């Protein structure tokens, strides 16, 4: 293996590695990693959170916490069916929380929607430390504040404290033109970019509702116009799930699909080059945004080096790997004039005891490893390279770090683009 030295000014920086975060449930089966509580049950590819009977309630929470603090994008589909002769009630909620009850949480029924509590309930019955998106199908009044309609989206929080279904704890609400309890499948996308929480009903291009909010700083209860704090998360992570309930009036509340992607920043960011590497593990495109990916021996890894906007098409590039101990601290080499920590993370110093190999070029268009006669360049549409995870590195607590450089004229003083490094944590 050849060790190379990059002629880039070294600037040391340390970043914290976060965990890969995304999932997609096109339907719900017995193997879906989620916990059902109360009257919730699975069937027909969906989950009926609360059936159309008086006073039912149920919840579903994913069995793992997911990172939300840096942003997330989640979409779920649901169907609410009101039986003939019934007026329908009460609705369902998407719940993000870091309550100690975790996946087993379930609050009161009726207007409490399975996440909140009645006035007569003991303190702490409702979910603590939560952000809630209500799909509220019953116009009620609680705590001195009334719902806007019986077809309402409303975003509730009370910071780290117990949250209430009172509109006095809402950051904002909207009554969509679409009837959400008409026995038709609807989708709701919840997009959080730190500073703004937005809802998109049924694929709307513009937000159906958008409120200022951040997990760190909180937001404002709009009706009383009072500030409310953010949440206390577990290293930026929270429990995710749904609740629903019926009261004297009732309806079926069905959850049919759910996908979630954390918008975590890359753990090992490159610079701002129009150059990227898409990763497939056994044919499935990796959707993690932090580029920290689990892999096993003999997995087939597909890499597609490409230029998303075409700015580095047909430019020479080199791709490198290095074996490091998982969890080892790494420093980035930053191109002079660029902003740390984005840069080249593979250790070229030979001084890091966590780096087990040199920096090895496996595609070398730039000739940093000695070069070759046929030097690879970025193909418009992407350059595909595949390899099998060597069994010799399985089960040893190792990560295979992958990063690439491309000629990117005008980007910086070295005309050098650097993609986000990929860490394959080998099981």
């Amino acid at each position, binding site marked *: 293996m050849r060790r190379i030295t990059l002629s880039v000014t070294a600037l040391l920086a340390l970043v914290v590695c976060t965990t890969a975060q995304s999932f997609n449930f096109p339907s719900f089966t017995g193997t879906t990693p989620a916990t059902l509580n109360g009257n919730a049950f699975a069937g027909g590819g969906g989950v009926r959170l609360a059936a159309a009977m008086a006073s039912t309630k149920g919840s579903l929470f994913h069995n793992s916490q997911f990172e939300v603090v840096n942003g997330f994008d989640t979409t779920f589909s649901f169907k609410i069916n009101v039986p003939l002769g019934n007026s329908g009630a009460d609705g369902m909620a998407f719940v993000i929380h870091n309550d100690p009850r975790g996946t087993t949480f379930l609050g009161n029924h009726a207007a409490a929607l399975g996440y909140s509590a009645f006035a007569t309930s003991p303190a702490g019955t409702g979910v603590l430390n939560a952000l809630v998106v209500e799909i509220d199908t019953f116009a009620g009044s609680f705590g001195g504040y009334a719902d806007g309609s019986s077809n309402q989206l409303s975003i509730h929080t009370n910071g780290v404290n117990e949250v209430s279904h009172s509109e006095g704890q809402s950051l904002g609400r909207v009554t969509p033109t679409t009837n959400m309890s008409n026995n038709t499948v609807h989708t709701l996308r919840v997009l959080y970019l730190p500073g703004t929480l937005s809802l998109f009903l049924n694929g709307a291009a513009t937000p159906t509702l958008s409120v200022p909010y951040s997990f760190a700083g909180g937001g404002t209860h709009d009706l009383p116009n009072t500030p409310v704090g953010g949440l206390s998360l577990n290293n930026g992570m929270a429990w995710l799930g749904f609740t629903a309930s019926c009261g004297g009036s009732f309806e079926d509340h069905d959850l049919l699909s759910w996908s979630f992607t954390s918008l975590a920043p890359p753990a090992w960011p490159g610079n701002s080059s129009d150059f990227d590497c898409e990763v497939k593990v056994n044919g499935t495109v990796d959707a993690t945004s932090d580029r920290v990916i689990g892999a096993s021996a003999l997995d087939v890894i597909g890499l597609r080096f490409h230029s998303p906007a075409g700015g580095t098409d047909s430019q020479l590039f080199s791709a490198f790997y290095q074996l490091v101990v998982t969890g080892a601290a790494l420093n980035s080499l930053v191109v002079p004039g660029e902003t740390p920590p984005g840069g080249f993370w593979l250790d070229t110093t030979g001084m890091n005891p966590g780096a087990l190999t040199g920096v090895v070029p496996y595609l070398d268009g730039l000739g940093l490893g000695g070069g070759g*006669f046929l030097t690879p*360049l970025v193909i418009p549409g992407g350059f595909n390279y*595949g390899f*099998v995870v060597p069994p010799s590195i399985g089960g040893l607590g190792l990560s295979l770090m992958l990063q690439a450089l491309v000629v990117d004229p005008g980007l910086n003083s070295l005309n050098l683009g650097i993609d986000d490094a990929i860490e394959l944590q080998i099981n």
Partner: protein
Amino acid sequence: MRRFALIGLLLTIGALSAVAQGPTWPGNATDFACEVKINGLIDSTPSRVLTVNALDIVGLRFHSPGGGTDNQLFSAFYQLIYIGVPLVSQVIPGETPPGGFWLDTSGTNPGVLTTVVPYLDGIGFGGPAFLAPVLLPGGSDFSFVVPPIIAGQAISLFLQAVIVEPGLNSLDLGIDDCVELQVI
């Protein structure tokens, strides 16, 4: 550049003439092929003998049309040879000539300017590789710029690849049709 020998391949009588409506330098019956693009345009020349200029961008997409060699290790080689030089194919024992490996490993042909050089080497002919390339479903790529240094000298850049293909023959080896890039 490293010289290598394909162990077990049998040297056969040279096949000098092009096969009508087929590749001039055919491989074997493998489910493994190499699509060639020149400056982004897919080549459909049956002979696989193409004309290129210095600085042309050559895109290669190795793929398995029937999926039979997906996820298998493969190696791709090049060799510089004067245009028109007779070549002899190495045919896998039990297979029908002239289909085989056309790059010259003998070192005795005066028209051959370089050794056989692996530029992707999943099978390890050029020594063991840690991230050995496998054929991705949908195709694996390689691309390069035609080096100006070989322009105007009546030189061809020969490209051929081999892949692990269990059960195909006694060596479990697939060989794609050889591509000749005549550099003008």
